[in-house]
C-alpha cells in the first residue's frame, strides 16, 4: 500500500454503466475495479512576444508508461489516497525523462499554435506525479467471449482493451 496524489473519480460505478448502456443495450456490463494510471503533470508559465503579448499558464501531462504528452484544460484537483498493490501499473518513465518530453511537447504546441516567427518563453513552474482513475469494465454479449474496457472516471470516455 502506498500514499499517492490522485484525482477523485467524477463518474461512479452506476454513472459508468448508465453511460455505456445508452450506446449498447444488448450487452451485460459490470464494473470490476478501479485502476490508477500514473501521469506526470507539468505546469509552465508561457509568454509570447507578439502584438498580443500573450502571457499565462499552460500545462501538460506525460503518460508515465509510454511518454505520450497531452495538453490539459484546467487546473486539476488532487487528493491523497492509499492505493493497493495491483491497482496501478508500474511507472516506466522517470521524472527527468518526462520533464524533457514535456518541455519539448509544450514548446512544439506553443510554436505551432502561435505560428510563424515568435518563439515563446517557457518556464517550468511545478511538476507533480499523480494517478488518474480508470474503471475496468467487463462487457458480455451472448455467444461471444467477454471483453474488457477501460472507462476514464474523470471524462467518461472509454476504450476497449
Amino acid at each position: 500500500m502506498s500514499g499517492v496524489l490522485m484525482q477523485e473519480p467524477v463518474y461512479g460505478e452506476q454513472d459508468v454503466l448508465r453511460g455505456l448502456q445508452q450506446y449498447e443495450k444488448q450487452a451485460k456490463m459490470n464494473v470490476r475495479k478501479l485502476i490508477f494510471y500514473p501521469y506526470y503533470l507539468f505546469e509552465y508559465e508561457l509568454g509570447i512576444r507578439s502584438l498580443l503579448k500573450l502571457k499565462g499558464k499552460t500545462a501538460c501531462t506525460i503518460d508515465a508508461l509510454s511518454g505520450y504528452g497531452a495538453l490539459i484544460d484546467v487546473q486539476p484537483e488532487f487528493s491523497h489516497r492509499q492505493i493497493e498493490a495491483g491497482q496501478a501499473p508500474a511507472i516506466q518513465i522517470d521524472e527527468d525523462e518526462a520533464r524533457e518530453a514535456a518541455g519539448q511537447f509544450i514548446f512544439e504546441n506553443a510554436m505551432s499554435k502561435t505560428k510563424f516567427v515568435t518563439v515563446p518563453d517557457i518556464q517550468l513552474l511545478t511538476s507533480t506525479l499523480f494517478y488518474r482513475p480508470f474503471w475496468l469494465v467487463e462487457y458480455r454479449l451472448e455467444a461471444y467471449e467477454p471483453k474488457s474496457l477501460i472507462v476514464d472516471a474523470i471524462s467518461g470516455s472509454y476504450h476497449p482493451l
Partner: protein
Amino acid sequence: MSMDGVIFITYIAVLLVIGLWFSRKSSESTENYLLGGRSLGPAVTAMTMQTTAMSGYMFMGAPALAFKYGWYALWYAIGDAGGSIINLSVLGKRMRRMSELLGALSPIEYLEKRFESASVRVIGSIIAIVFLFAYVCAQFIAAGKAMATLTGFPYELSLVIGISVIIIYTVAGGYLAVAYTSFVQGIIMVTGVVGIGFLAYFHVGGISGLNTALAQIDPTYLSIWGKDLAFYGQWGVVLGAILIFGIGYMGLPHVVVRHMSMQSTKTVKGAILISAIWNQFFIYVPYILGLIGIILLPNLADPEMVITELAYTLFPGFFAALLLSAVMSAVMSTADSLLMQAGTILSRDVYQRFINKNASQKTTVLVSRLCILGGGLVGIAVAIYEPPSIFGLAVFAFGTLGNSFLVPYVASVYSKKANALGCLCAMIGGAMTNIIWTSMELETITAVHPFLAGLTVSLIGMIIGSRFGRKPSQPILNIFEQSTNKRFFSKEFDQNIARSLAPEAKNISSFLSQETDRHSGIYS
C-alpha cells in the same frame, strides 16, 4: 484602391480586434490553461475545424471543374463525400482495431508500428510534406486570384500582398485569435455560400431547370463522361476520380495533439459531429455552383472565378467583397497551417533524426521556419511563374498521397506477410508512378487515370517487396490475428470509443496480463 480593397482591409482589422479581445480575455482567466482548448466551446471549435477544411480547391477548383466538364465533375464529389464511408466500412474496422492494439495515435505512427520500421515513418513523412507543399501552392493561387479581384491589382502583386497581409495577421494574432476569428469567418462563408447557392438555385429553376438549360447549351454537359464525352468509356479515369479524395486524405500527416480533459466535457465530440454534417453538405454545393455558372456566366474567361462572379452578380457589392475577404483569409489560414505542419515534421523527423540528433529546441524551430520559408517561396514562385489550375494541383497532391498510402494501409490489415520493405516499395512506387504519369500526360495515351496507374504499381511493389526483407515479428502477427476477430460492439458504441486512449488501453492490458501471470504463478 477600389472600394472592395478598403472593405478587405477593414475586415482584416476588425478580425484582428476580435482576436485580440478574446485572447486577452482567455489569458486573464486563472483557472483555464492557455492552449488547453476548453475555453473555445463546441460551436467555436466546430467552426474553426470547418474553416480549416474550406480550401481554395473548394471555392475555386471544384466549381471550375464542373464549369468545364458538367455533371462529370460530380464523380470527384462522390469520392470526397464517400471517403469517410470507405474508411469506416472497408478499412476502418480492422484498422481501428489494430491501431488500438498497437497504441498508435496517428496514421503514420500506425504504419511505423505495424511495419516495425522507422524508415516507413520517415519516407511517409517526406512524401506527405512534399505533397502538402503542392497543396499549399494551390491555396496560394486561389488567394492571389481572390486578392486580385478585391484590389484590382495585377495577379502577381496581389499574390505577394495577400500572403504578406495574412502572415502579419496570423503572426500578430496567434492561435487563440485565429480560432475566434475563424468562427466569425466561418459564419460569413457559410451564410455566403448557402446564400449564393439558394439564390442561384432558384434563379435557374432548381435541378430540372438547371438540366434543361444545360441541355440547351450542350447536352453532353449532362453526361457522366464529361462535356463532349471527353472521358467516354474510360472507367479507369472515372474510378480514379472517385477514389482520389476519399483515399488521399489518409496520407495526410494528421499532426495529432492529445488533449486530456481535467473535468467532464463533451466539447470535442459535439464539435466533430457539427463539422461532419457541414462537410457533407459543403462537398456538393461548389460543384452545383459551377454548373449554374455555365448558364448564368456563359462568357466567364476564368472558370475558377465562378463563385466570385456569382457573388458579385447575385449580391450587393459590399457583401460580395466581404465574402471574398473571408474566403481569402480562410484560404491563407489553411495554407499557413499546412506549412506549419510540414515544417514541424521536417525538422523533427528528418533534421533531428538524421542530421543533428542533439539539436536544441531553438535550432529545431529555426530549421522548421527556414523550411517553411523555403517552401513558401517556392510556392509563390510556382504560383507566379507557372500557375497550374487549382483543381489540377489539388488532384495531383491528393492522388500522389493516395497512391503512397492506400496499399500499405490495406495490406497492413489484410496481409500477414506484408512487411516494411513491401511498404516502402509500395509508397515510393505509387508516388513515383503518379508523378511520372501526370508530368508526361500518359492519361491521354493510356486512358488510365494517374491515380489508378499509381495504385497498380504500388500494389505490385507491396507484393514483390514483401517477399524479401525481414518478416513481421511474432507480437505483430499476434496483433494481426487479434484484429481479424469479429468485433461485436454496436455501431454507436464503436463510434464513441475515445481513440486517444489507445496508449493507456494497451498499457493497462499488458499490466492486467502480468497481474494474471503473477497470480497464476503464486497459486500454481
